[in-house]
């Protein structure tokens, strides 16, 4: 019946089926996170620019030089980690996805390890946080990025373990997508920091 009185209210039309939003909540959350992280690094880069451009000699004469060749190779390793990650998005099986994500985690861990070894050598040669503004700005900027890479590598490693059990089937790709977006950001950020700190 369709009378519409107080005793018998009119039946409402059924709600239309829910549409998927144009931007998923996952992507929106990652956009906000990356915007905030970008502002953090913008502040650090601004700080670096002030000291770099106001110095008469950079790097200072009494400070050790940065390991350019090793860091260049390390950069290739980090950027190469994007290839298996991209393949993981297109993988059809959980095992293939886990393999690609695991390879990404391995390359990321290699980058962090090599950076750590190079830092130890720099400290032994006298470049420390307190040795000069050169050391302070270097460790602040690159250290902040290294912290992000370490966090990202751990995240990717956990994702690789979860991907083995087919947890990221096509209908639930949000977690893999979040991890991937963060890793893309970290690698893209290194593409800005490496020329700025090591080459300029």
């Amino acid at each position: 019946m369709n009378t519409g009185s107080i005793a018998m209210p009119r039946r409402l039309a059924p709600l239309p089926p829910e549409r998927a939003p144009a931007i998923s909540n996952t992507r929106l959350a990652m956009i906000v996170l990356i915007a905030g992280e970008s502002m953090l690094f913008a502040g650090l880069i601004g700080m670096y620019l002030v000291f770099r451009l106001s110095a008469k000699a950079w790097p200072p004469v009494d400070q050790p030089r940065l390991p350019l060749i090793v860091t260049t190779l390390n950069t290739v390793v980090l950027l190469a980690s994007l290839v298996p990650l991209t393949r993981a998005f297109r993988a059809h099986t959980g095992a293939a996805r886990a393999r690609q994500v695991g390879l990404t985690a391995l390359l990321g861990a290699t980058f962090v390890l090599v950076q750590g070894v190079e830092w130890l050598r720099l400290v032994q040669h006298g470049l420390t946080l307190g040795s000069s503004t050169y050391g302070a700005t270097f460790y602040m900027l690159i250290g902040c990025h290294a912290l992000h890479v370490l966090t990202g590598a751990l995240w990717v490693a956990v994702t690789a373990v979860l991907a083995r059990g087919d947890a990221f089937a096509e209908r639930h790709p949000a977690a893999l997508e979040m991890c991937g977006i963060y890793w893309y950001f970290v690698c893209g950020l290194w593409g800005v920091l490496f020329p700025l700190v090591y080459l300029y």
Partner: protein
Amino acid sequence: MRSAILAGGALLSGPATALAQSCAMCGSSFSPDDPATRAFTWSIIFLLLVPYTIFGLAAGFVFWSFRRASDRPRATIIPMAWRRRPIAPADGPEEA
């Protein structure tokens, strides 16, 4: 529209060298030959541009995502009153 363009042109066509190019603190903190002046200039310009760049990229991505969504709700476009064609009176017998 024309007045906005003229106003913008008048603002941009001011003297190239202004009498004051910084606040009192920055202007008095550095000597003319101090490299810190250039350093602060570039750093401030960089920090001014970054928020707009980030926001523009994010907003552009959101806009692009909504544009390419195939099942996005489409609004019914109703022309404004001055654009609607008057409805011609129906032909019929005149009232007595």
